[in-house]
């Protein structure tokens, strides 16, 4: 709803009550959305600790916070299937997951399912891979 100011206030209040809530890192995304660097700076250090502890985070949002390849690689595997892996699809076909990996990225980038991602997934299912 583009209520960025309200969202920041609500996230800060919620984090004060439940800092380990699954949506706690929404504060960082909300601060990024309004380029509030004063808010993001202290949150970034805290985010590294959370990533180290295994917390999931959106890869594209992290790109806006740091250029640490270690942190990026740590959160990327849960968000995308591994390369070089072939998965069997219904009907006996297989896929190298490239299109599905792309669909995951498109999906994550827009924060929700999109027709583009859905089309990639469907078209991949009909791809006659080896």
């Amino acid at each position, binding site marked *: *709803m583009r*209520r960025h100011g*309200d*969202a*920041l206030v*609500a*996230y800060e*209040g*919620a984090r004060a*009550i*439940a800092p380990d*809530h699954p*949506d*706690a890192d*929404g*504060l960082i995304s*909300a601060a990024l959305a309004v380029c509030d660097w004063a808010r993001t700076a202290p949150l970034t250090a805290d985010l590294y600790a959370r990533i180290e502890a295994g917390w999931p985070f959106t890869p594209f949002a992290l790109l806006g916070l740091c250029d640490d390849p270690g942190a990026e690689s740590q959160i990327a595997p849960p968000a995308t299937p591994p390369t070089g892996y072939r998965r069997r699809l219904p009907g006996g076909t297989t896929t190298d997951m490239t299109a599905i990996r792309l669909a995951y990225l498109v999906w994550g980038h827009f924060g929700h399912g999109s027709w583009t991602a859905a089309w990639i997934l469907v078209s991949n299912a009909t791809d006659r891979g080896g």
Partner: protein
Amino acid sequence: MSERWPSGRTTMAALNNRGTALKGLKRYGEALARYEEALVLSPRLADALYNSANL
């Protein structure tokens, strides 16, 4: 959505859940109103705060 509910934790949870259901229906304004009603009853209801922030 207009009937009165008894006070208590169930009411807060119900309002929060209604907000989530309305969000699923893309009725975001109504969803926010339900979350805010829940927060009036319980300002420290973290789920409702996060849900209102996520809208």
